C-alpha cells in the first residue's frame, strides 16, 4: 500500500491507518481447548434467516439463525479476505461470504470453494438468550 497517489491523502477518521486493507484485520486469536460460554445477546436481535455479529469474551463472532430453527456461530471475518460473514447469505448447508462468494459448510467449517476453513463455535439459546462458547 505504498501507491504514490496515496501519499498526500490524510486520514480523516481518527485511528484509521492509511490504506489498511481488510485482510490485515487480525485473524482469530482464540486459544485452543475447552471454551467458556458467553451470553452475547437476544435471539430476537437476529432477523429470521440472517446473521448478526457479537463479541463473545473479546472475540467477534457471527451468529446465524436459520429458517429451520437452527443456530450457528462462526468467526466474524472471512479467512479469504476479511469479509463480514454476518452479512452473508445462508442455506441449510452453507454460509456464503458477501465479498467473493466463498462458501463454508456448517458441518465442519470447510470451504467448498478452496479457501481456508472457518472456525465454528458452539451456540445455543436459553430463555431467549444466545450463548456462544469461545
Amino acid at each position, binding site marked *: 500500500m505504498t501507491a504514490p497517489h496515496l501519499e498526500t491523502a490524510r486520514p480523516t477518521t481518527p485511528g*484509521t491507518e492509511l490504506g489498511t486493507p481488510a485482510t490485515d484485520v487480525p485473524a482469530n486469536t482464540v486459544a485452543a481447548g475447552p471454551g467458556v460460554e458467553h451470553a452475547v445477546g437476544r435471539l430476537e436481535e437476529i432477523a429470521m434467516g440472517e446473521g448478526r455479529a457479537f463479541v463473545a469474551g473479546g472475540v467477534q463472532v457471527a451468529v446465524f439463525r436459520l*429458517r429451520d430453527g437452527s443456530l450457528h456461530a462462526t468467526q466474524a471475518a472471512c479467512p479469504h479476505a476479511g469479509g*463480514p460473514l454476518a452479512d452473508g447469505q445462508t442455506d441449510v448447508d452453507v454460509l456464503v461470504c458477501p465479498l467473493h462468494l466463498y462458501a463454508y459448510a456448517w458441518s465442519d467449517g470447510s470451504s467448498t470453494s478452496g479457501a481456508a476453513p472457518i472456525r465454528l463455535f458452539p451456540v445455543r439459546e436459553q430463555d431467549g438468550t444466545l450463548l456462544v462458547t469461545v
Partner: protein
Amino acid sequence: MTTILGGRPEGLTSLSLGDDEFDTRARLVVVGNGMAGARFVEEVLERGGGEQFRITVFGDEPHGNYNRIMLSPVLAGESHEDEIVLNSHDWYDDNGIHLRAGVRVERADTAAKVVYGSDGSATPYDHLVLATGSYSFIPPMTGIRTGDGGLLPGVYGFRTIDETRAMLAATDSCERAVVMGGGLLGLEAARALQGHGLQVELVHAMPWLMNAQLDAEAGAILKKSVESLGITVHLGAMAGEVLGTEHVEGVLLKDGRRLDCDLLVVAAGVRPHSDVAVRSGLEVERAVIVDDQLRTDDPDIYAIGECAQHRGSVYGLVAPAWEHAKVLADVLTGTDPGAEYHGSRTATKLKVAGVDVAVMGVSTPERDDDEFLVISEPRRGVHLSVVIREDKLVGATLLGDTRKVAYLTQAFDRGTPLPEERIRLLVDLSDGAEEVGVAEMPADSQVCNCNGVSKGDICGAVADGCGSVGAVMDRTRAGKGCGSCKSLVKQIVEWAADGEVTEDASASWYVPGIPMAKPELMAAIREQDLRSVSSVFAALAPGGKDDAKSKMGLTSLLRMIWGSEYEQENDAKFINDRVHGNIQRDGTFSVVPQIKGGVTTPAQLRKIADVAEKYEVPMVKITGGQRIDLLGVRKEDLPDMWNDLGMPSGYAYGKSFRTVKTCVGSDFCRFGLGDSTQLGIDLETRFQGIESPAKMKLAVVGCPRNCAEAYVKDIGVVAIGNGKWEVYVGGAAGATIRKGDLLATVDSPEAVIELSGRFMQYYRENANWLERTYDFVPRIGLEKIKQVLLEDSEGICADLDAGMQRSIDAYTDPWGQDAAEPATPGQFRTSLPLVDLPKVPVR
C-alpha cells in the same frame, strides 16, 4: 447369428413398397454405406434431397453406418461398439431410405442403368454414386490363405467391425500377436492388443515407422516410444510365410527368423475398392477417375471417398471423403449446380499408440532452396519439423508435442506470414510472445478437420445457447469424427462461454437450486401463488431445501411477478439489497444518491458536501454513470446519512435499472437535435429502481456524436433530428464491448419511453438470471424482438406494458422507507464489531 450394429430389435420389420410407379422422384443409388456413402446421403437429405430422390443404399456389411475411425478404441476396449454407430437401421427407415445392408453390388449396366446385387437383384438408377471405399491389402504370402481362398484362422485384417469383434474375441485365448504393418492402423492394432495383455511384435517392411507420414528421424523416435510400451518392433522385415495348417502358429521372415504367434493382424495398407467400377467398364487407374464434380467417365455415375481418384490423388482420410460428399450433394440436389472439388490440403492430427502426431504437407525438403527446421529431442520422444518454401509453410511434422498445431495449421492452410525467426514456429521463446491460444485464433480457423468445423461455428453454437461441450458437439459435429480435436473444442467452448460451461441440464435452470427453466418456474409461482422466496423453496426445490446462491435471483423474480404484493424476506436478499448500498472490500458501503440524467443543483451538491464531511467519508468520486459516489461508509451510519441527504437511492448496487446518462442536448449544445437531458430524466423518473435479471444502464444523446455513449448501453437513445429518436438495445461497454442493435426509430419522447419500458419488461420476463442485454438480444435475435415488440406478433405487448406498470406502481424509495423504520432488527448493525471501519484508504 451376428449382432447387427445399429440394427433393429428382433421381430421388427418394416414394409417396403418397392418401386412406386407413380413416384416421379429420380432414383439415386449409393453403393457403399461407409463413412463417405452415408455422409453423402446425410448431405443430400440436409439439402432437401428427400423430396427429389428415391434413395437406395447398398452396404456390403449387414450393419448400419458406423465410424470406422473409431475401430481402434473399440479394439482397445476403450469404446463400446454401440458408441461408434453413426446411423442405425431406424435412421434409414425414418428418412425413407431403402437400405440394402449385406448386399454387395456386383456391377452396373451403364447402358440399361441398372445395378446388379449379389442377391440376384436388379436395381434401376438415374444417378449412381460409388462410395465403395477400400479394403485391407493382404500381401500374397505362402500359407496365409486356406484352400477355399479364405484367411487362415487366426489371421485378420483390420478394417471392419466384424474383424474387430473377431480379434476382440480372440484376445481371450491368444497370447502372442504379430502385427504386419507399421503404419497408423498397424500401430493402433499393436497397442490395442498389447493393452489386452498379449505379447505383441510389430513387423514393418520399411526402414522406419509411419514412413508415409514421417521422416526417418521422427520415425525412429516414434519407434522408441512404441517400444517403451512393451511392443517389439522389427523394421525392414518382410514376412515371407505364414505357419500353421488349422490355425496360425507363426510367421517366417524372409531373413529366416521365425516369430511364433497365435494371432496375426495384417495391416499392410489398404487398396481402393474399384472392382465394381472395373466390371462396369468405368475408367479406373489406382482408383475410379473422377472430375472436379466427382463424375466418372459415365455422366450419371459418380465416385466419392477412398475409391475416387481426383487429379491424380487418392485420399485415405475421412476429411476429403466428407468434402466429396458435400460437393456432390450440392451438384446433384441443384443447391449449387456449379460446385467443384479442387483437392484437399490434408492436415491430420491423431494419437497413434499413445503418441500425439500431427502431420501436414510434405515431411522433408524437396527443392534446393526449401528451408528445413528440425527440433529433435529423442529422450523426450519429441520430434518437430517444418518445411518452408518461398516464405510459406508447406509442411510440418509434430511428434510427441502438438501444442503448436493450431498455429501451424493456420499458416499451412492460409499461407499466413511466418515469423522472421523460424524457430518461433515450433517453440515459444520466453519474451512474452504467447503461443496462439484459443482467444487469438481467427474465427474461420478450422478446429475439427474431420467435419470442417471452424472456431466461429463453435462460438456460434455457444451464442445460440449450447451451454455444454456435449451440446456444442451435437450441434456442430465438432469432435465427432476422429475425436482428436475434442480438447481444443472444449477449450473454445469454455472460452466462448466465458467460463460458464455446464455439463448438465442445470444450464437451463433459472437458478441452481430449483430444477426449472424460467418460463416453467414463473408459471409454477403464479399457479401456486408463491409470494416469498421461502415458499418457493418449500414448494419447488428438491426436498424443499433452500439454496443460498439461488435466493437473490428468486427475490428479483418474485418482485417482478408480484410487484407490491411480493412478500419481503430480507434474508433472501444479497447484503447490498438489504442495506441499499454496495459493499466494499472492508465491509463498508458506498452511497450513491439519485441524480437523474446526471443533472444536479448547487443545493444538492452542498448537501452532499455537508454529508461527506459530517460522516468523514473516505472518498467522494464522480461515477461513470454521471453521479456522485460516497465511498467507505459504515453500515451503522447509512440511515442517518440518508436522512441528512434527503435524496432517494440511485440504485448503484442492485441488479436493477441503474442510471440514464445524458448529454446536454438541444438546450445548450449547438449540435443538439433533441432534448436528450429531459428525456433521460423522464426515463429515470419512470423506471427508477426496477429490478431486472442483471443491471440495466441507459443513455440518451442529443445527436449521433454520442457524447454520453448511448450506442453501448443496455438501452441507448439517439436524437437524429426532425423529432425522431433511435432506440438501440443490447449494447455494452464493460467486460464485453458491443454496439447496441437498432430496435426502432420513433418520433416522440413518449414513444421512446413506451418502447423502452416494453423492451425492459420483455427482458425481465425472458432473460436468464444475470444475463445482460448484450447476451439476451443476440440470443433471442433482433428480428424476433422487433416482431414481438413492434408488431406485437405474440399479442403480449399489452401484458408487457401492464407488467411494467405494476412494477412502477410498486416502487418506493428504499432509503426513505428503511431510514424511517428498519426492515429487520439490527439491519444496520456492524458485522465486524471489533474492527475500526473504514479500513479503505481515506483521502
